């Protein structure tokens, strides 16, 4: 699976995984070894009990501060009353440095600065929460690919000559030589990523008003043609 990422234009570009495939939350096996940082206070698995820290079974999807009988800090209870729930995203912040999320937390842990470490640890913890195959409403176990375009649209074979004709509208702002002096480079993108990005503007998932206007006026065939043209400029 190839990943394309234009780091020069982080604000507007989208990292898209080409071809099928969601991303697992992390490597649960590696996460198990990382859990040694937590074991002094937290238990998981069958028979796990609240000790220094609450047990971490059924963590995903749970409201914070919800174990009856466990004495949470006032700060945690306030966060819970404010609606804090444990999902992959809130746990990522909490594990990076607990005080970033709940400033008065009693959890004394310096944090895991590496995103990969947190992802692997979360994948391990996820195993101890409900399986979506038994309870479909349980928290996701992976992050999805980020488009919902009909495959028939992606399948349209673009005509590069037609694309060249259409491109005159683009090259006013987007440099035909692929350089980026403040406006993103659109040459040599894999065609599928180009089509996905244009449809994201067309459907207003991406918010740039000019691009929304331009993409809104282009048909699926025209977008495919542009993708074919710009994708082949070097060849």
């Amino acid at each position, binding site marked *: 699976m190839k990943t394309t990422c234009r780091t020069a234009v982080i604000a507007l570009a989208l990292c898209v995984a080409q071809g*099928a*495939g969601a991303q697992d939350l992390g490597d649960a096996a590696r996460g198990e070894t990382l859990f040694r940082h937590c074991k002094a206070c937290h238990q998981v698995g069958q028979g796990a009990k609240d000790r220094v820290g609450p047990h971490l079974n059924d963590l995903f999807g749970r409201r914070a501060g919800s174990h009856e009988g466990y004495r949470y800090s006032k700060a945690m209870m306030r966060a819970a009353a404010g609606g804090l729930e444990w999902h992959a995203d809130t746990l990522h912040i909490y594990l990076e440095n607990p005080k970033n999320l709940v400033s008065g937390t009693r959890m004394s842990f310096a944090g895991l600065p590496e995103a990969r470490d947190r992802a692997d640890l979360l994948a391990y913890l996820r195993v101890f929460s409900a*399986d979506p*195959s*038994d*309870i*479909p*409403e349980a928290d*996701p*176990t992976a992050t999805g690919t980020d488009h919902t375009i009909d495959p028939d649209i992606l399948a349209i074979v673009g005509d590069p000559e037609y694309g060249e004709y259409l491109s005159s509208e683009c090259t006013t702002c987007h440099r035909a030589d692929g350089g980026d002096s403040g406006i993103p480079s659109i040459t040599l993108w894999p065609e599928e990523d180009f089509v996905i990005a244009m449809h994201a503007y067309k459907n207003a998932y991406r918010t740039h008003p000019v691009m929304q206007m331009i993409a809104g006026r282009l048909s699926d065939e025209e977008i495919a043609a542009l993708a074919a043209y710009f994708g082949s400029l070097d060849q």
Partner: protein
Amino acid sequence: MTLNRRVFIGSATAAATLTAPMVQAASHGKPRVVVVGGGAGGATAARYIAKDSDGEIDVILIEPTKTYYTCFFSNLVIGGFRDIESIAHSYGTLAREYGVNVVHDWAVGVDRDAKSVALAGGGSVAYDKLILGPGIDFIDGSVPGWDVTAQNVMPHAYKAGSQTELLKAQVMAMPEGGTFVMVAPPNPFRCPPGPYERVSMVAHALKQGNPTAKIIIADPKENFSKQGLFEEGWEQHYPGMITRIGPDFGGENVTVNPDEMTVDIDGEVIKAAACNVIPAQKAGRIAELAGVTEGNWAPVNPTDMSSKADPDIYVLGDAAAQGDMPKSGFSANSQAKVCANAVRGALTDARVFPAKYANTCWSLIAAEDGVKVGAAYEPTEEKIASVDSFISQNDEDAATRAATYRESLGWYDGITADMFG
């Protein structure tokens, strides 16, 4: 291989020297897909392959029943919201409109080297690709005291049709104030909210005609799908009628006595006026016979539902170890389309698209009170993983719940058209 009629009717010795006759005449060199099981997975796969291949692929569907009763919505029959005929479907349209060769027989074996499926009737069918959608079978002995000979006394009604009618009749015949006992299954099982929708439907029927009757659920599981919604709904619509005994109180320790009509839950013996035993489940037996199961289920490749044991065999729906997807008709139908696309791509030059899966389960708690849960799924290296989910909320108003129920009616018409044409 042509059938010689004289030999076929005549001598036994001659018959013994013949190889099993082909059910299907020579396929003129076309690639052939054999589908075993004509449910939400198999019927959908057969229809999509036949429909989208423009006659380039021969499709044979092997399904023992001539009328298919959908498990989904069978609870509504028990509750009195539908009649049994409304969930019955024929394979006639698949046969005459789509050219699917519908063979009403049982598959009793798969020879993976010869690539052929043996039929109970005595023939065999060769395949280029084999799709198995055999649903579930019950694990012997999983509920002590119960086996298939008891299913007319304590129905499972977990394969729809006559069992559905039987259970409904038993509920309606309960004496005043009698107890309905459900023995719920352990994970994983087909249709996670199913047993609890069933309890809701039985409660609805009893509330009309036998309001002092009681319902007890013996459950080996601590939690179940849509639990918060069901428990709130039971409190609202059927207060005091339903008791659920979970594993903390011995709900996993159950023995039944069909002769006495008693259920022993962790030492407490209950006299049941009607008893629904839903045993633990495994893949439909043909998957095991084909050698594609590991433990109780058939592991599949997340991108196309092909068996990890054999690239020419695909497993759909309940029988598959399908990662995060629950065992539902919706899931089977969703997987069937990914599979059909992959199979066509393998046999012809059809374009294959990235796999995307989805599921939505609707449940009816009471009249006009419907809830739903659903999710989107995508393949990862390891399994089909959930990437997003939704569920009805506890504080929804009556209009929303009524609309959700109506949505389910629309879905039912849609999916059955998708399966049967």
